């Protein structure tokens, strides 16, 4: 028996290839795009360029601090998103100003609520705590030095200075 090929009588555009492409795009965006991830970076800060740097993929147990210098008062301006649920807050080094002290925040993260080595639960230590410094390229080392001393006081061993890859001329 001879079979006759049925004729296509559909007037619609075939959307199947388009759906395939769109599904691929969606999967790509779902995997590659960061949605709702806020590490507290201050996008206004101009970070320095570096001709040599490392890529760090694992940034767990870290606190990112934005550090800049007030042009008029020459005082350090430090902000960080200390808690995941709270917005970015201003931290102070010592003396006047409103906000929590940077060294206390670092000690709290490093040693837990009791601010001293040892303990479990909410007093548990995080020896691998890292400090990520997102510094303004125009600030002076005097400002950075005070942040580094606060980190040393809190016994933070690893410091990561965020930089931009040097643009190729």
């Amino acid at each position, binding site marked *: 028996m001879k079979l006759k090929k049925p004729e296509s009588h559909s007037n619609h555009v075939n959307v199947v290839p388009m759906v395939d492409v769109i599904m691929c*795009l969606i999967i790509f965006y779902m995997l590659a795009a*960061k*949605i709702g991830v806020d590490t507290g970076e201050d996008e206004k800060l101009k970070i320095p360029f570096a*001709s040599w740097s490392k890529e760090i993929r694992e940034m767990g147990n870290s606190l990112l601090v934005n550090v800049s210098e007030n042009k008029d008062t020459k005082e350090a301006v430090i902000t960080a998103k200390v808690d995941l649920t709270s917005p970015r807050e201003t931290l102070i080094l010592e003396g006047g100003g409103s906000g929590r002290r940077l060294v206390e925040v670092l000690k709290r993260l490093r040693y837990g609520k009791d601010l001293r080595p040892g303990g479990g639960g909410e007093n548990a230590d995080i020896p691998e705590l890292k400090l990520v410094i997102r510094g303004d*390229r125009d600030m002076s*080392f005097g400002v950075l030095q005070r942040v580094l001393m606060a980190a040393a006081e809190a*016994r933070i061993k690893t410091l990561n200075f965020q930089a931009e890859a040097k643009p190729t001329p």
Partner: protein
Amino acid sequence: MHVEKGSKAVHYESGPDMTPLVDVVMVLLIFLMMAGKFDGLKKYLSSELPITSSGPSNTPPDPTQVPKQDIVLNVTSPTARTDTFRAFYGRNINADTEEQLATQLKAMLTEKLAAGTKVDEIQLFIKPTRNVIYTNVIRVYAAAGRAGFTNIGFQTADG
């Protein structure tokens, strides 16, 4: 229009209707394109050494640790708040550009390695004065990293 009684309407469509699916998928796609953020991988200069004070330490050395060779690289700014710097260490290092510094540091490290010192046993401390701007501090750090130093830290400034 007159339709004959008893005649069956001809329907050639087969398969599911894709229109709602396409609508939903397009909405999802637009949302992800608008809300997504592509950072790429950030670059970092990593230091495992805490900042140290200038001068001799009061802490006795740890007998279990291999003694480290300290190199203190002084960094100054010739005039206040300028984009230039000068880095110096003894007679070996005297540089005012990142390239020059990287070359001199590499030559010094090669000499030390040839003398039998391991790279892990050398600690390079960058000691900038307070007025050196951060971008120059990072330049010095990058030069040290390019030269091959692995233990890089900071020392407090005096001036």
